[in-house]
């Protein structure tokens, strides 16, 4: 029998606010353990949460960018469970009235594009971090991440393959980066996904029994987990066995998922309305203003880039990264040459990134430098070889291109008197070659050009040198 895989994703995104969702502790990544905590995020007796306005703003912005309805009145609820990473033993989240609902993302190319529906987006707080391997008999707890704002973006079960799931999450990631609500660094855990997966015979409309795999934090792991889990489920059904609804832990190094045995039979979160936080009411004016402030999103960018003369493929790669797009736009603004800008980014920059094992988000040079380099080439101030070297320096050390060219005397010699004098000397010193040329051996000209360029340390326009040389010889 042929089976269809049905995947829904719950994506957790840490928001790029300065402070936590319910207290004023910093959200900065990587602090010493338990140094970014206060009585509120430690859940000390008597403490009360106060909602961070930026979290609501970010949630609304996200909802609008993902084509959602924004709930004019939304509320917080408590999700109760015991775990050492959760100081209050409840997570403040949104169950009954989440802030956004019913949106979608489009994946695939325009002809074959597919809508993945978004069920809802809710605001909640992140938990702390447990360290299991530092001590033999104890687990150590660091609450720095506890209370960092999260959006949980819940999709409908609309994806049918690992590829679609990865495409969805990549698209989601780049949108979130464009609108500036999260850096979505998977390696730092600021974007995590839970996979809900079931299989069913092709043609069936009924959903199969689903399993859940939690906290996946790389695209590759997501793809592998979906493939392995769907194979496991299909194998079960083929054997006439049943899929059990359960939470499974994905072991990426083993390439296998394991059922998590829960200590209590039933998980009962005993959700109820959070009495400490008044309802959040969002006005139409706020929605309109937020919508107006949403920057250009990737689909629109691709459209615009192709109008500038880029191929679809190039436009997609550049628009597919907020950092590449930003560099491209900045470069284009400075040099006015979209194709050149794209070439430099797609060839030279990608190679530099690859060779240094860096991600686009790690680039830390002035984004107008590349445009300036392109301009220098166009104006004949440097040649392309020099330009590459200068860009490398920009990439590595964020040097100022003009200053660097000046200080290292890399500029082309444009003064024709100097070139003329140099070429004249070369002609004088190479009588033999001159005679050969005059007797019809054209290769001799190449030699003389080479000698002239050498004498000019390669920094004169080859065309000018050739012209002067021919002039002298004839």
């Amino acid at each position, binding site marked *: 029998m042929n089976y269809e895989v049905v995947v829904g994703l719950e994506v957790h995104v840490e928001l790029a606010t300065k402070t936590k969702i319910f207290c004023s502790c910093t959200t900065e990544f990587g602090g010493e353990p338990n140094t970014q905590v206060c009585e509120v995020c430690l859940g000390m007796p008597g403490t*009360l949460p106060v909602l961070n306005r930026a979290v609501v703003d970010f949630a609304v912005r996200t909802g609008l960018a993902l084509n959602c309805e924004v709930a004019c009145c939304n509320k917080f609820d408590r999700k109760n469970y015991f775990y050492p990473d959760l100081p209050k033993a409840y997570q403040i989240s949104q169950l009954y009235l989440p802030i956004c609902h019913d949106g979608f993302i489009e994946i695939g190319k325009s002809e074959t594009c597919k809508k993945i529906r978004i069920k809802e987006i809710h605001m909640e707080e992140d938990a702390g971090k447990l360290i299991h391997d530092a001590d033999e008999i104890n687990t150590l707890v660091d609450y720095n991440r506890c209370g960092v704002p999260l959006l949980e973006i819940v999709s409908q079960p609309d994806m049918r393959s690992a590829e679609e799931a990865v495409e969805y999450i990549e698209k989601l990631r780049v949108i979130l980066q464009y609108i500036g609500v999260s850096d979505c660094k998977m390696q730092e855990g600021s974007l995590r996904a839970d996979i809900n997966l079931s299989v069913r015979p092709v043609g069936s409309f009924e959903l199969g029994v689903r399993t859940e795999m939690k906290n996946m934090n790389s695209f590759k792991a997501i793809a592998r987990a979906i493939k392995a889990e769907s194979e496991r489920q299909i194998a079960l059904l083929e054997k006439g066995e049943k899929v059990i609804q359960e939470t499974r832990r994905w072991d990426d190094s083993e390439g296998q998922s394991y059922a998590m045995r829960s200590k209590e039979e039933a998980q009962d979160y005993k959700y109820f309305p959070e009495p400490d936080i008044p309802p959040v009411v969002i006005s139409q004016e706020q929605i309109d203003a937020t919508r107006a402030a949403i920057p250009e999103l990737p689909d629109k960018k691709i459209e615009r880039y192709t109008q500038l003369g880029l191929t679809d493929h190039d436009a997609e790669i550049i628009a597919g990264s907020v950092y590449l797009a930003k560099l491209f736009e900045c470069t284009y603004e400075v040099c006015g040459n979209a194709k050149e800008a794209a070439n430099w980014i797609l060839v030279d920059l990608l190679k530099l990134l690859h060779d240094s094992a860096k991600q686009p988000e790690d680039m830390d040079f002035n984004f107008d430098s590349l445009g300036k380099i392109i301009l220098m080439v166009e104006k004949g101030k440097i040649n392309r070889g020099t330009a590459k070297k200068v860009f490398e320096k920009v990439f590595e050390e964020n040097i100022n291109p003009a200053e660097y060219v000046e200080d290292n005397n890399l500029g082309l010699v444009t003064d024709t008197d100097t070139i003329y004098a140099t070429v004249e000397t070369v002609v004088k010193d190479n009588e033999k070659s001159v005679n050969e040329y005059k007797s019809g051996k054209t290769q001799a000209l190449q030699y003389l050009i080479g000698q002239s360029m050498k004498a000019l340390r390669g920094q004169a326009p080859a065309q000018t040198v050739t012209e002067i040389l021919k002039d002298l010889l004839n």
Partner: protein
Amino acid sequence: MDILSLSAVETARKIKNRDLSVKEVLDAVFYAIDEKDKKYNCFITLCRDEAYARANIVQAQIDKGEELSALAGVPIAVKDNICTKGIKTTCASKMLKNFVPVYNAHIVDLIEKAGLIVVGKTNMDEFAMGSTTETSAFGVTLNPWDTTRVSGGSSGGAAAAVAARMVHLAIGSDTGGSVRQPSSLCSVTGLKPTYGRVSRRGLIAYASSLDQIGPIGRNAEDCAALMGIIGGYDSGDSTSVESTPLELEKIKRYSLQGKRIGIPKEFFGGGLQEDVKTAVLAAVNELKELGAEVEEFELPQVKYAVPTYYIIACAEASSNLSRYDGIRYGYRSDGAESLFETYVKSRSEAFGIETKRRIMLGNFVLSSGYYDEYYKKALQAKDIIQKAFSDAFKEYDFVFGPVYPTTAPKLNESLSDPLKMYMADIYTVTANIAGLPAVSVPCGFDSNGLPVGMQLVGRPFCESELLGVVYSFEQKNDAHEKTAGGGTV
């Protein structure tokens, strides 16, 4: 001069006029506590050193002529579920026996800024769950009027300390009557403000949507002065609200002439002790003599108040008390070897039985399958009860009733029958459910000479009017002036 016989406002006035020094007053208070508290057990922790250090600062401020407040220099007792930075705050539980808060409750900052001096933390029912102070892990607080009886609860230590003339003033908290009921049983005045009028930041939560901090004093004026200090919006409590400050002079000038008081018939049904009924109805006549129009009306929703209250309170409590897991603070069992055992043993060994019972009840009403039937239903009943009061206040300026069906119960009489104990909260819980301000006022005595209190409930944010009525009433009825042990001061 017997300093403890003065009211808080009078004491502050004498301090201001240099008739008394802050230290003299503090000496008198600690002398009284040292003399009497061995007997009554009102305090869990005394903070003598901190108090004297504060006294020096406050005296210096007063000497410089700084106008701190109408209560500057007056010592005050604070219920032990209100966080005091650097001073143990136990909630009368083994769980928090050694807990030292790292921050002050908002109202502690406010009272200190106003020049009041915290002398100690008062006994209470564990986590404010109870109406007798018998669930305290630190022993019961005895009633100063009869030491074979309880002082009421949960703010029993606070009310008894004021009644026994150990301190002039105290701060309590009221979730279902915990300020009013012990005030009634000890013959002091206790106010539960409108929900949101006083910041809850630093009040260790029992039931977040019902908890409210309130003043306990000897008379309306003292309560009003304290209320004026602790009330107001706090950006750290999102449920707190801005309100107009109380004006003492206005309260003193308040007239009951033409004011309408409604008495729910249901408040005088079965279960109300005859002596209590007599004393409370006598008070009604005095209110009439002061010019009030009094009328009976029907408030059938009262019947649903106790179950509504216990469902909501226990549900929230079960969640609020889950944080006590022995990891970040509080008791941790030595016998725990696994994480699961750390939770179970620490909680089982450190919580008392009444606390456990309410946590279990809360888990029950929130658990899947029962949520709609109990918890959601109770939230809807809350809406209905709140609307019923709002309708009543279209007719009446105040709703009148008893505070508690009986005078102070004997020791060891209440806990054996929890349902009966819960049912006795019938008169007080309605104000918490509806979020309304309510005051307990000494109004008489039963045949054994035990105090009886009456209760007035007002419109939202009408604390000033409520205290105005109490002030007028005090001009007619001197129950509040009688002290435990007999005699009028």
